[in-house]
């Protein structure tokens, strides 16, 4: 089974960084990406992020998400073609003058896709190289309320469990002669025999999950600092570099716009 967004135990560059450093890094990447309207620059950032994955030895895991990113890009471009036509008409999606392909819409679609890819990949690098416990502790120290932390943690934790469970349910229904329907309506209808047990079982779990969290004193007792991650020299160097990149970007891209 392909695991989505699960921590992978390795000894590599990003694994050695403090979670705080990595949070700073993805925030800066996010800011730069969202402030950039220039496709070549976004391409450079995307390549840089992929290089980061390579350095962190998680490139293979990152590339596994490419199918999702490609699918999303097709959807983005279709949406922009339909909703925001502008600029020159390059051709028509449906021959006979329907659904014009315009330069403006194409530009917007590609822009969205690149931003989306960069954000997804950098977030993924962050999550799969950070032990959830360190992640939660760091977020807690940064003042994120424990309930939000737990929500994030539990969402990550249950992704593979739900994947496994969905497979089991699917098999159980296949054995009952269930045949996933064809066509759009058939597909929607055939979702019920798998989704209803999956969601019911997940909901049935929430009571025990909630009780477990309370009985461990998660939301009430304070934590003894233990095996704390500290900022090392490497973290400081990386933070300074990220800071310089951010300042340089703001200097080149943003200040000219203001003045």
């Amino acid at each position: 089974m392909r695991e989505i967004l699960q921590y992978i135990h390795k000894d590599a560059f990003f694994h050695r960084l403090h979670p705080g450093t990595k949070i700073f890094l993805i925030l800066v990447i996010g800011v730069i990406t969202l402030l950039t309207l220039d496709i070549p620059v976004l391409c450079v950032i995307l390549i840089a992020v992929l290089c980061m994955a390579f350095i962190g030895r998680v490139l293979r895991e990152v590339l596994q998400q490419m199918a999702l990113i490609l699918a999303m890009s097709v959807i983005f471009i279709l949406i922009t073609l339909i909703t925001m036509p502008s600029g020159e008409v390059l051709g028509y999606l449906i021959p006979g003058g329907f659904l014009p392909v315009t330069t403006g819409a194409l530009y917007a679609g590609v822009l969205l896709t690149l931003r989306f890819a960069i954000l997804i990949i950098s977030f993924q690098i962050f999550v799969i190289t950070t032990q959830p416990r360190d992640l939660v502790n760091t977020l807690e120290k940064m003042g994120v309320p424990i309930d939000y932390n737990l929500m994030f943690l539990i969402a990550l934790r249950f992704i593979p469990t739900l994947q496994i469970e969905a497979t089991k349910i699917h098999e159980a229904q296949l054995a009952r002669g269930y045949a996933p329907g064809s066509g759009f309506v058939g597909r929607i209808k055939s979702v019920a025999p798998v989704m209803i047990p999956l969601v019911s079982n997940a909901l049935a779990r929430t009571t025990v999950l909630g009780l477990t969290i309370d009985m461990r004193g998660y939301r009430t007792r304070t934590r003894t600092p233990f095996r704390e991650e500290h900022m090392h020299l490497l973290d400081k160097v990386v933070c300074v570099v990220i800071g310089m990149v951010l300042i340089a970007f703001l200097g080149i891209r943003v200040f000219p716009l203001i003045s």
Partner: protein
Amino acid sequence: MITLEEVSYSYPRGGRQAISRVSVNIEPGECLFVTGPSGAGKTTMCMAAAGILEHEFGGEKEGKITILGRNVKEYASLSEISGHVGMVFDDPEAQLIFTSVEEEILSALERRGLSAEEIESRLSSIMEVTQLTALKDRAPHALSGGQKQRLVLATTLALGTDIVILDEPTAELDERGTESIISVLKDLKAGGKTIVLTEHKFTKFRDLIDQMIVMDAGRIRALGKPGDLIADEFVKGVIFPDYSGIRDGSSHSPSDEQKPLVSIKNLEHAYGEVQALNGVSLDIFPGEFVAIVGENGSGKTTLIKHLIGLLRPSGGTVLVDGKDAGVAPVSDLAHSVGLVFQNPDHMFFADTVAEEIMFGIRNLGIPEPDMVLKKVLDATGLTHSRDLYPRWLSRGERQKLAIACVLAMRPKVIILDEPTTGLDGREAREVMEILKHLQQEGRSIVMVTHSRQIAEECTDRIITIDSGRIQSDIRREG
């Protein structure tokens, strides 16, 4: 340590009282064993004793509960009580929050105000006691059922409470897994902890038990020392599964000219690099009742999935009712083979029992659906529940419904994966009686089970699987 005085409780959703006038006094250092049919109120009683009902649930409560001499109402919150009482619920999956074994145990240790050195030493001793040291970096979804159970227990031990309440900690475990939980509990008891335990496997836990409760329909049916109770007929039926008379002595050995319904030759299956099945060959004839036994991970489930095409052979052939199960579509094989999975909750999605059964009938286009439905409800004793919501049935009834759903598709071979999981002795017997009846109608029954007793007392042929090979295949005459 804990006393319950005339405690009654109804869940907010209404219905009858889940427990009714339950009184018990749990002494320090003793082990209280709670047993009874599914739906008898065992879990509710545990949650009452842990102070959960008082602090977390609505519903109607009566009676008085004290923990360490203090009324549960006087505790500020469940969190305060949880400094004294730890509870292990029956679904291990829902109690694992973190993404590795070590993190999970640490999450409990870190919030107790211990020093860093103490945390370190307790962490390693708990992992050792529960045999988890080698798995410390493993993610919860990559653990086996037994390993998950041990991890949940380890995390509860990490809380360091004097009272530990466990709700069916060995329900889905094989003999070895059960033994490993029992040995941890023995250590706990020797260390002076008070243990409350709901279970069906009385015989296995016997050495541990000081006091025992047998519940039925929310009430305490019997309370006392095990030695004083086992003479009672009702208690006997619950704690000692009795399968006498299920094997009827008639021989089902195939005659020479009979053709096998299932014919497996040199079956191999590999998951990636792991060889799960290694040259398995066997024939199953019409009207045979076969048990497949073996430890968790021996390849039993992998084997049965091949009969209905959910897994395809890496090598060898599987013929079922004249169809090649290596290539035939699952929907085609489902006409010949019915597979009842271990957890019935993996299949229920309809609003009523009757609709649930109709799903398979419609999928396969079985003729005269209403008559089939009626017959199947009758055969599984579910006629009175036909309009109920499947998920509200007791575990025993859900298991019967799972069998009914498969039976309605009129397969020639019915395969069941651990059909007695979570059932008490009487319910397990009822399920076996249903299966026996189906065999007498001429169907072949293949049952995967951990229980040697069920295999020996109910079936005519026992196939033992170990490490993906058939270790023995014994047909018993008469």
